[in-house]
């Protein structure tokens, strides 16, 4: 008989299968609480901001942003990389931790995967709407056309992005959905209204928990996890290639792929922590998301934060050692130039702040973890800002050096994506089980 080799029970409170089902289905089967409505309204409000600012951008032109002749990417691509990065933790938690048989993942992977998908939604907005002619957004797809046919450029990292992001989104969706099917079936079988019976029945695809199905299911989940792992690494590698394959000093760096991946995991875990700590508090899931989970995640944050920190320093040393004046200047400019504030914010948030997790107290105190997780999110946004804007604003020819500050439209779009993200998340929390019931039931009896 296989027993997970863990020190403490991952589910507290002596829950039975029934308790698990009841606890997790409660928000779905009951009317939403006032706090849900409040949060949802705020999110929808922000979503309207997104709609408004995007409409304005399309109506007037990208000129409504403050990007200029030298800094042609600003907040848009910063936000894109930020959101894609956040997305990574979800896949990582469910796929990589599955491969490593880390059972503590089980109560958090569902929401982490949901976060992935919503974050990729948010991310996808930016490359689409940063285009001058968004209505031609389908042109990067290799479709036959009446131009002869004119195809696409397989040399372009942006095209790789198109493939990577769409693959990532669809595979993540499939993975997430696959995991949801047994739980949807559970809700279906508990349904007391026709609508619920119909819709959950529709999405449950006739699942009935047959042992044959479970056998195949486990194999499929394992293989999906197996291919999702290189996928998730490849996606941020390819995103980093947007920069790494260019010639701009500060971008043209071979360290970018691992550095971006570590940063993505780092920021993703930050976001997962932020969300889980809220969900845990609001939905009373303390028994499922225990301090064991929090501690494990803070350790990952500590690790990846340090990897990112090493990358920062490595980058710097390489620049200094390169003997290449443009590269040297680019990094000196990051530290002491007009955007030094962004650089030092990034250094503080990403390198220094996570180091507090060496302390056990810090790793197990939810409010403190929450604060640090926010700091990590801010830091990782600034990392992308530093990479994109400070590299572009002073590159090779000093004649083209410029400053860049966002307009209200750019800020509005960024805030708006939070609206989209949280709208999706609130709907998810209302209509789907936030914790993977089937998996949690398997570890309910796993003891020390």
């Amino acid at each position: 008989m296989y027993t997970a080799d863990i020190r403490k029970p991952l589910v507290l409170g002596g829950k039975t299968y029934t308790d698990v089902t009841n606890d997790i289905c409660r928000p779905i089967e009951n009317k939403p609480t006032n706090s849900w409505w409040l949060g949802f309204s705020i999110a929808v409000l922000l979503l309207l901001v997104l709609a408004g600012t995007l409409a304005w951008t399309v109506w007037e032109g990208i000129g409504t942003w403050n990007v200029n002749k030298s800094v042609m990417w600003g907040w848009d691509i910063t936000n894109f990389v930020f959101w894609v990065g956040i997305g990574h933790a979800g896949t990582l938690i469910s796929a990589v931790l599955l491969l490593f048989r880390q059972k503590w993942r089980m109560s958090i992977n569902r929401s982490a995967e949901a976060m992935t998908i919503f974050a990729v939604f948010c991310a996808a907005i930016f490359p689409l709407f940063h285009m001058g002619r968004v209505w031609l957004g389908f042109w990067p797809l290799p479709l036959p056309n009446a131009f002869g046919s004119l195809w696409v450029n397989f040399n372009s990292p942006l095209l790789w992005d198109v493939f990577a992001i769409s693959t990532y989104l669809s595979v993540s969706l499939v993975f997430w959905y696959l995991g949801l099917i047994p739980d949807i079936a559970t809700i279906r079988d508990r349904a007391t209204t026709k609508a619920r019976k119909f819709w959950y029945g529709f999405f449950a695809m006739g699942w009935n928990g047959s042992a044959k199905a479970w056998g195949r299911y486990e194999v499929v989940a394992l293989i999906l996890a197996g291919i999702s792992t290189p996928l998730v690494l490849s996606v941020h590698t390819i995103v980093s290639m947007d920069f790494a394959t260019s010639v701009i000093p500060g971008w043209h760096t071979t360290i970018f792929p691992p550095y971006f991946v570590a940063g993505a995991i780092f920021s993703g875990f930050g976001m997962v922590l932020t969300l889980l700590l809220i969900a845990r508090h609001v939905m009373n899931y303390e028994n499922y998301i225990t301090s064991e989970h929090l501690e494990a995640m803070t350790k990952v944050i500590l690790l990846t934060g340090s990897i990112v920190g090493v990358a920062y320093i490595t980058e710097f040393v390489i620049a200094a050692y390169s003997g290449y004046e443009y590269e040297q200047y680019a990094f000196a400019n990051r530290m002491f130039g007009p955007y030094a504030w962004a650089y030092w914010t990034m250094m503080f948030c990403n390198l220094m702040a996570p180091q507090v997790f060496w302390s056990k107290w810090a790793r197990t105190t939810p409010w403190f973890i929450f604060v640090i997780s926010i700091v990590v999110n801010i830091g990782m946004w600034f990392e992308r800002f530093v990479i994109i804007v400070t590299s572009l604003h002073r590159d090779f020819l000093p004649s083209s050096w410029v400053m860049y500050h966002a307009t209200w439209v750019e800020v509005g779009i960024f805030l708006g994506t939070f609206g989209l993200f949280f709208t999706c998340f609130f709907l998810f929390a209302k209509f789907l089980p936030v914790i993977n019931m089937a998996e949690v039931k398997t570890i309910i009896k796993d003891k020390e």
Partner: protein
Amino acid sequence: MLKLEGSYICGIPERAHYQMYKSKTHIALTALFIFSSTLSFSNNMSSFYSESTFIALVILSVVLAAIAALLFGIKKHLTALQNEKIGTETEPSFYDSKIKPITSKWNPTIATLVIAGLLMVVLGGFGYKFGMDEVGVQQGYSPTQPINFSHKIHAGQYEIDCKYCHSTVEKSKSASIPSLNTCMNCHKYVKAAEKYNGKTSPEIQKIYDAIGFDGDNMEYIKGYDQKPIEWVRIHNLPDLAYFNHSQHVVVGKVECQTCHGPIQEMDKVYQYSTLQMGWCIDCHRERGIDSENNAYYEEVHKNMIAEGKDYVTVAENGGLECSKCHY
């Protein structure tokens, strides 16, 4: 020394000066005299119409379908409620009675694959169609012209050389619609009166009215306020594509009919070709250049012989490069 297009013209004959200077018109009129086809056009509006119509219809049908579905659903629900109240058994729907028994026998595996396959085919087909139609096509466009000019009579029956009227086809990017004095070279005498009981043909009369010619006395009316003929353009290439007639006719030795079709048989001209980029590209990929008889292509011809080829296509000579047409 810089010389574009021959030499720069100086010392226009005085008559021309007079013409330029004499006409005290608003600049719009200056523009009016200008043969419009010299400039490419701003819109390819056909695409506007076809696409806007299409999209508007799609939006509309989706909205209507949704409303219809909603209404239908409400009706069904109400009927069910009604029946429940009265206690009568709801009559099984068409679906329940006819379709369901059949579909319930389907093998889900096969059904899944078939449905997925169908969906892919439909979506793929739609995508392909969308891609192909992306550029508006006005093939077959045949508007009514202010004068019912027949190419069949002029080019077909009387075998007038195309270049007689479209005189700039060998010199300029545009073939040019002939100015009225070109028409008058013949129609000063040709009035087709035999068909109209000794009167000037009404179509030819339109020329006279425009240029100010007194058909009865066979002389130009002095001081006549001339009105140009506003022909309707048939071949509308979008502005973003530079097409030069002289390049194709003189250098490429392309027959008019290759692109314009059997123009000598057209009573009413229509657009023969699609004028899509793919159409241009197809020709460029197939057609060879006349490298042997043009000193410009001397090097190309030498290389061609060296490589043992019979001919070099336009594409091989860089004819597929973007800025050959787009700038």
